[in-house]
């Protein structure tokens, strides 16, 4: 590898160290693992959304040559420890907790629910075996919608709950909601829906579990966002001590929130491996991924807004219903974040927030890139509807109502200070980048030719990591830990609990540490994916830029101080006079004095300094997020809607963002573009659809449509100058923002394009057929 010349690596688009292996087929994904004696699992799944399981007979499958074992739900239950969803347990969920087994025993609760697992010499044979498992079902009425689930007459999906409430109804008020609405000149009211969509990483879920009977230990090769969370989940459900479970992860083919911990199927595979004393692999196929891995969103909102005649947004009142699907995990917890984030960067002085969660016979709710994103969608959509009624310009209405940068900062009505938030600046930047008056002229000219153009703007903030609460005991995202070591050949090794699955941590963390420690980029290695050697951690919630970038910086600083201290004895110089540059410890201003850091490490290990010098060149560093801060930005889309076909073309897409100090601009821009592409998909293409019987209608890539290279335009990105809050660490998370704000940006643009028809849009999914319906609905009313 050729050395990279840069004054500082941090802030430069350093080429990724992940790429040479990925580009040559040398990446190692979970499906690439092949162990001696490895068996393969396939699952028998329910064809019904809601049914009683009367009997499961796997005897014919067991007799098939090549099939080694088959487990029914009851058999697997006897091999595992019952308990709630591991993620809910880890996050301390106190609400309704359904009881269920890894494989269905008494009932199946969605089409695709696993009923039995067949283990065979190959995946082909395991699937043959599945064909021979006979299951008798007795139909139960399916609970397909949240509205029916909340009807006390609906049959309970989980017997121990007695109803279908995943999250008990609650109401909270911030500020004086009643007085705000009473005093308002105008009160607007609307209902907005967000449809069900899903993560769809190109690599689905997968696991290879390998139990060693002699040592009683389990090695799991996983595709996971956290090797430690997976380890805890496996240990919990298999009744093993945590130190007996080692989780390894290599390259991971995307996740977007799906692969946190271990799913029911993965735990079942681990249990089978223990029972058989052989390695077992399961990698889900795309049908399983689309129908059973997890889905997200599907929330509905009744919203009211108190507004003055001048266009001041005084307060909002929100009722949210979330459809958590069957086997609720993350879904029941999401409304709390939606509530906290609902005011966004706006000055509103009152917020009422009610929420309820419904259990339905659909695939379960999982975290998906910005799980709380509906707050931005609903608020930014509603603002455009309000602007129309007020006859105001949507951009002007936003500029009027967002909190400007002030000292002390404005405080969200839900409690957090908007310190360093540059929403106003990002909106102003959008207005500079996009010539709105020129667009309006072009739009009018186009309309005369029967061409429908529209423009839309939306803005968001994300707590990535969020501000430090004044006087708060800890940072906004807890603690991040990193172990750093200087090897005797001069390599600086970072051990992190981050589990990158596309985020480029092996590059970005090395950039920060190389700068801070004073070695070339190539001399830093980032070790991930081994629960025996990396500290606890999780890649998710856009935490890694601040938390892990920060701990890499502080850890490298600590390790450097240790090295300089040892070198000061070696070089008989005062530590204050030493520095590390380009991998050499030298007396400041005297390049000839330099000795390589590797030599310092070798001498340190020799023991020559005795007990008085701390010669251990390994540190464990921790970072609490420092002063934290917000990520955010404003997006603008220009679209053309073909009113004959309903096809929406995104003509231009502009982003003005502030994610703090950039570690690697190319990586940041990749995160933004990828998020925007998913937002474009959510609006124009993607939907996890169910029929009235609860059959998933989007089980293939010909039904669940993803954006292609022809659907996503070039995305223009402007980075705003950030407001530094911390002395050292001002990197902020950028993973989720694109997906959070692209949907309202696009829908606002589409509604603008259709304004000659008088179309109003109260939903997020706008495929061609729906565009045509929206136009026809207005025509029918006229």
């Amino acid at each position: 590898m050729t050395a990279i010349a840069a004054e500082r690596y941090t802030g430069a688009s350093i080429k990724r160290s992940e790429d040479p292996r990925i580009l040559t087929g040398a990446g190692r994904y979970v499906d690439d693992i092949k162990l001696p004696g490895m068996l393969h699992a396939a699952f028998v799944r329910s064809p019904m959304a809601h049914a009683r399981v009367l009997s499961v007979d796997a005897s014919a499958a067991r007799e098939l040559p090549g099939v080694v074992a088959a487990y029914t739900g009851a058999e697997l239950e006897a091999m595992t420890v019952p308990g709630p969803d591991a993620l809910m347990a880890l996050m301390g969920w106190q609400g309704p907790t359904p009881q269920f087994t890894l494989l269905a025993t008494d009932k199946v609760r969605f089409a695709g629910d696993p009923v039995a697992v067949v283990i065979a010499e190959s995946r082909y044979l395991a699937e043959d075996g599945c064909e021979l498992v006979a299951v008798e079902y007795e139909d139960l009425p399916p609970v397909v919608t949240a509205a029916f689930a909340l009807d006390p007459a609906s049959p309970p999906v989980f017997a121990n709950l007695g109803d279908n409430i995943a999250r008990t109804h609650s109401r909270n008020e911030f500020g004086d909601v009643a007085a705000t609405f009473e005093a308002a000149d105008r009160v607007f009211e609307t209902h907005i829906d967000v449809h069900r969509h899903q993560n769809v990483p190109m690599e689905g879920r997968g696991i290879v579990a390998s139990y060693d009977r002699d040592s009683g230990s389990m090695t799991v090769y996983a595709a996971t966002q956290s090797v430690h969370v997976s380890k805890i989940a496996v240990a919990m459900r298999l009744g093993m001590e945590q130190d007996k479970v080692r989780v390894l992860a290599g390259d991971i083919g995307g996740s977007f929130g799906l692969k946190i911990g271990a799913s029911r199927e993965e735990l079942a595979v681990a249990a089978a491996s223990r029972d058989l004393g052989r390695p077992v692999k399961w990698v889900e196929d795309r049908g399983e991924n689309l129908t059973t891995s997890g889905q997200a969103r599907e929330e509905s909102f009744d919203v009211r807004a108190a507004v003055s005649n001048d266009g001041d947004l005084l307060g909002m009142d929100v009722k949210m219903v979330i459809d958590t699907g069957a086997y609720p995990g993350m879904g029941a917890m999401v409304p709390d974040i939606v509530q906290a984030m609902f005011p966004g960067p706006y000055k509103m002085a009152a917020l009422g927030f009610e929420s309820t969660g419904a259990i339905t016979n659909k695939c379960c709710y999982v975290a998906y890139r910005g799980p709380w994103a509906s707050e931005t969608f609903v608020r930014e959509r509603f603002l455009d509807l309000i602007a129309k009624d007020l006859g105001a310009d949507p951009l002007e209405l936003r500029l009027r109502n967002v909190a400007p940068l002030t000292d002390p900062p404005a405080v969200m009505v839900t409690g957090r200070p908007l310190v360093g938030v540059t929403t106003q600046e990002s909106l102003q930047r959008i207005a500079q980048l996009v010539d709105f008056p020129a667009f309006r002229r072009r739009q009018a000219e186009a309309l005369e030719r029967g061409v429908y153009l529209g423009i839309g703007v939306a803005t968001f903030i994300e707590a990535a990591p969020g501000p430090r609460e004044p006087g708060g005991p800890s940072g906004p995202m807890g603690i991040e830990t990193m172990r750093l070591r200087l090897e005797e050949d001069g390599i600086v090794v970072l051990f992190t609990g981050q589990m990158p699955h596309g985020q480029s941590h092996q590059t970005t963390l090395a950039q920060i540490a190389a700068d801070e420690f004073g070695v070339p980029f190539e001399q830093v290695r980032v070790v991930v994916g081994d629960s025996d050697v990396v500290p606890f951690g999780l890649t998710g919630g856009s935490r890694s830029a601040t938390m892990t970038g920060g701990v890499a910086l502080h850890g490298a600083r600590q390790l450097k101080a240790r090295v300089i201290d040892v070198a000061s004895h070696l070089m008989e110089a005062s530590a204050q006079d030493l520095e590390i540059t380009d991998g050499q410890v030298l007396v400041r201003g005297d390049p000839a004095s330099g000795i390589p850091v590797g030599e310092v490490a070798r001498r340190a290990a020799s023991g020559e300094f005795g007990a008085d010098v701390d010669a251990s060149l390994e540190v464990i560093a921790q970072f609490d997020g420092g002063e934290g801060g917000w990520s955010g930005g404003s997006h603008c889309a220009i679209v053309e809607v073909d009113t004959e076909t309903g096809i929406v073309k995104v003509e231009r897409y502009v982003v003005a963002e502030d994610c703090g100090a950039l570690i690697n601009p190319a990586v940041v821009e990749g995160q933004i573009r990828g998020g925007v592409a998913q937002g474009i998909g959510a609006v124009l293409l993607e939907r996890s659809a169910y029929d009235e019987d609860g059959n998933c209608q989007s089980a293939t890539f010909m039904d669940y449509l993803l954006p292609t290279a022809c659907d996503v335009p070039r995305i223009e990105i402007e980075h705003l100058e950030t407001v530094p809050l911390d002395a050292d660490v001002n990197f902020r998370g950028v993973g989720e923002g694109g997906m959070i704000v692209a949907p309202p940006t696009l829908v606002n643009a589409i509604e603008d394009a259709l304004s000659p028809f008088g179309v109003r849009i109260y939903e997020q999914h706008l495929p061609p057929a729906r565009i045509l319906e929206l136009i026809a609905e207005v025509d029918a009313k006229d």
Partner: protein
Amino acid sequence: MPDITLTVNGVTRTGSPEARKTLADFLRDDLSLTGTHLGCEHGVCGACTVILDGRAVRSCLMLAVQAAGSDVTTIEGLGPDGELGELQQAMWDSHSFQCGFCTPGMVMQAAAFLGDHPEAGEPEIREALSGNICRCTGYQSIIDGVLLAVERIREGSARETA
């Protein structure tokens, strides 16, 4: 089980795959060439794309026995000795990819296309890659990588003519 012989990445390989085994599974399981990825197994996502007798094909939609006698190139064989070829280098330089799962198919599709259209422009490249799904990048960095390769190929042939 039928015996088959084919050329993979310039090397003659034989095998006895079950008749129902896909070419993708044969490459991955029997030949341990795990660079070829399976993203959907129904021919939509393109992650499993390999070059067979000069054309990009989806190895999940083809049986191994159908590839008997063919000349197959996978991602492992695209560059010289597993090193980066010109297209791969351009994609590295352009930060083309993130998670890397769609990468083998995307690169093979682009390589096959550039072989026939060495002077392609952005619209043609987008069209040519529109059957390969990437969930991470929004495609721009991938398109930029292919465009950079086109530029370098053009510069290279200009140098040769000069």
